[in-house]
């Protein structure tokens, strides 16, 4: 079937780009209308994305791609183009939908900020880059989008640039993700080197790695896959490069929802899914992905338990859920990963935007200052609750189905992975319960006056919540063990019903519910009054370890930052002493000759004469003397 809208998919990133250009150029004169331009642009992208997606649903439409030669040097052509597949169509929808909702939401959240139009410009640029990344038909273009979303993330984290924390977080986010980016870049270099015809497009990658085994040796394949994964690790906040993501919460909350929950951080998962053929060609790579994912999921879930910043909890939760996706990828089911990506995008965006409402109301992010908000902010509380349940994997909400798909895949791969997944699921429910209870239940613990004035956010901020809540509840039905429509659509192959995975489903649901119950026990029912919980904590070192996020930041400080600074200082000494010193030495030698000359020129005529006689004798002996 001819695809109509897919041909125009390239327009999707261009709408927000246009908005960005307009907003940047007319920054000053567009104080009020700026936001609308951005919203209209994102709406246009959304519409186009939906049209493309609907066009492709059910018809088995062919992939569409188009492009042009970007750069030709000699026999090598680097092209730029877009490709619409079902996966990209899905991603388009996710990205443009969340982007639109966040744009809308920001209208309320950022209403009073004087740099609102700058904010919208950044958001538009991000949307453009992210859509570009998704649509890219080759790795190089994907890399370009990849870097650009990183920059937007950086700009938005540092949006409140006058805060030193924001500055530090932005810098950290950029640099840490850049470590991963290098992996991606080197992977691209390797592929460029080894792919026939220097092809970097996904179709060729698929052809080479899927069918013609042996074109590229296994070790190279593994190296490529691991390097690609390194990119994903950086972007998707996987251990050990996840440290930037919690700090990134210094940015405005809508940004966290859009970039650091729903879209950009999922780009790593998208990347692995997009280049899955390479991973499938290397067992080592797949295992690495799986174990790193599982470990990250567990680690982040535990870390989330003791965070007091509402956004940091969510951030760790995001890390953990991304770990899930990686686990799924590593376990061999990229469709499960994408499915979880899909559902997670909705409920995590929902949770962030909900948290945004709370922060907007209370002007604090500290859970210890919250409490009892459920009564004052009913819509927020209800939608947030839906998000919590979805994330906790309570059936039949979206999170349950996607998490179940992941766990099923992990179960097939290795029991250890499955166990990690289950434990994580339990912890997930636990920290979400803690979060919800601390924020919405009980009575206000912080500034009473502020708490009293806290009220529900305006409609422009709650409407996106409602949309997302609805999706969080319902989006899971696109793929259940009883009918995996999404997986089939994505992979283009029929996937058999997985009725045998009922025990997995049960375990998953039980873990979620257990977590919720534990949460209620610890923080709802058994919450110590007066806040003196500290004394009775078991294993204080473990708690401190978790509270301090496993000392990873400190470890990096000692492992990388300090040595780099030390090396820099050492080199600075070297530069001054040796490199500069060599110059000074040469200059000194000339100067010394000059000094010698000055010593000779003492004004004493007979010294001059003596020097001349000595020179004469030496000259004669040295040159004429050789002959005798």
């Amino acid at each position, binding site marked *: 079937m001819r695809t109509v809208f897919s041909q125009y998919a390239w327009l999707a990133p261009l709408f927000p780009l246009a908005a960005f250009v307009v907003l940047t150029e007319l920054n000053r004169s567009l104080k009020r209308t700026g936001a609308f331009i951005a919203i209209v642009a994102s709406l246009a992208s959304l519409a186009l994305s939906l049209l493309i997606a609907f066009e492709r649903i059910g018809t088995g439409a062919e992939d569409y791609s188009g492009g042009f030669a970007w750069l030709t040097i000699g026999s090598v052509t680097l092209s730029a183009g877009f490709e619409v597949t079902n996966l990209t169509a899905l991603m388009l929808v996710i990205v443009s939908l969340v982007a639109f909702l966040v744009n809308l939401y920001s209208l309320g959240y950022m209403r009073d900020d004087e740099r609102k139009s700058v904010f919208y410009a950044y958001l538009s640029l991000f949307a453009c880059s992210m859509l570009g990344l998704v649509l890219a038909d080759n790795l190089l273009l994907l890399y370009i989008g990849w870097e650009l979303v990183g920059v937007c993330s950086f700009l938005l984290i540092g949006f409140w640039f006058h805060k030193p924390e924001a500055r530090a977080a932005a810098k950290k986010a950029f640099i840490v993700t850049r470590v991963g980016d290098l992996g991606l870049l080197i992977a691209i270099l390797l592929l460029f080197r080894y792919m026939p015809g220097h092809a970097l497009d996904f179709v060729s990658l698929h052809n080479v790695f899927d069918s013609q085994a042996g074109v590229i040796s296994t070790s190279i394949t593994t190296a490529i896959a691991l390097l690609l994964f390194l990119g994903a690790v950086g972007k998707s906040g996987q251990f050990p490069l996840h440290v930037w993501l919690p700090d990134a919460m210094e940015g405005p909350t809508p940004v966290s929802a859009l970039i650091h929950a729903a879209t950009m951080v999922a780009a790593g998962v998208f990347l692995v899914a997009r280049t899955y053929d390479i991973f499938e060609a290397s067992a080592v790579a797949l295992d690495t992905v799986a174990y790193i994912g599982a470990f990250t999921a567990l680690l982040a879930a535990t870390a989330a338990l003791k965070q007091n910043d509402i956004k940091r909890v969510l951030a760790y939760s995001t890390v953990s859920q991304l770990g899930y996706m990686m686990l799924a990828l590593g376990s061999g089911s990229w469709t499960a990963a994408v499915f979880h990506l899909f559902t997670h995008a909705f409920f995590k965006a929902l949770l962030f935007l909900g948290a945004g409402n709370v922060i907007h109301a209370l002007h604090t992010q500290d859970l210890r200052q919250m409490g009892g908000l459920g009564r004052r902010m009913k819509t927020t509380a209800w939608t947030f609750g839906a998000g919590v349940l979805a994330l906790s994997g309570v059936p039949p909400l979206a999170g349950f189905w996607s998490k179940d798909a992941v766990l099923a895949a992990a179960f097939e791969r290795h029991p250890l992975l499955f166990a990690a997944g289950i434990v994580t699921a339990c912890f997930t429910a636990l920290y979400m319960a803690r979060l919800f209870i601390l924020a919405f239940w009980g009575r206000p613990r912080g500034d009473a006056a502020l708490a009293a004035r806290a009220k529900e956010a305006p409609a422009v901020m709650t409407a996106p919540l409602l949309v997302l809540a609805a999706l969080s509840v319902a989006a899971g039905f696109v793929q259940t063990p009883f009918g995996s429509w999404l997986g089939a659509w994505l992979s283009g192959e029929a996937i058999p019903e997985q009725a045998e995975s009922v025990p997995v489903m049960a375990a998953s649901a039980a873990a979620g519910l257990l977590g919720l119950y534990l949460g209620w026990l610890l923080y709802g029912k058994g919450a110590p009054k007066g806040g003196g919980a500290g004394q009775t904590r078991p294993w204080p070192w473990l708690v401190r370890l978790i509270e301090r996020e496993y000392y990873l930041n400190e470890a990096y400080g000692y492992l990388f930052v300090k040595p780099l600074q030390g090396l820099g200082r050492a080199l600075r000494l070297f530069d001054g002493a040796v490199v500069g010193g060599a110059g000074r030495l040469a200059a000194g030698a000339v100067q010394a000759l000059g000094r010698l000359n000055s010593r000779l020129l003492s004004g004493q005529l007979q010294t001059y004469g*003596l020097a001349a006689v000595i020179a004469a004798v030496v000259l004669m002996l040295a040159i004429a003397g050789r002959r*005798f």
Partner: protein
Amino acid sequence: MFPFNLNPTGEFFAFFALAVCAITGAVMALSLAKVVHTALSLAFTFVSLAGLFILLGAEFVAFVQVLIYVGAVTILMIFGIMMTKHRDEERERGRPLLETLAAVFCLCLFGILFFAIRSAGFPVPETALPADNTTEIGTLLFTKYAVPFELVSVLLTAAFIGAVALAKREEEPA
């Protein structure tokens, strides 16, 4: 090694005596304290050289030597000595380093020269100088060496003008 070929002819003895005189004069000149003595001692050397010139058949040159060196130069020097005050030599402090180095390297230079002179075996020349070489010199000066001869006159004039211009006292401007 004894530097001289012992060939006891008349010329040899004459040479030996004059050489001793010349060297003695020179060495004395360097070691005498008073400047006037030095000048006179060198005059002695110059006279000895004139004697050697005669020995070598250069009577005219010897004559000029005596005339100019002993007559003119030494007198000029003595004038110079008289026109300038000379402190007593004993007040001078020595400059041992300079003197030692100068001695060493002058000896080296002499060594080189000596080696070169000794290493050359000079044959006895077949042709001899004309006996009446004063006439011959006169002829040559006005023919073959006319150009430098004219030039020397310019040189003497220039030297004369220069010396006078330098040495004459200028009235101090007010």
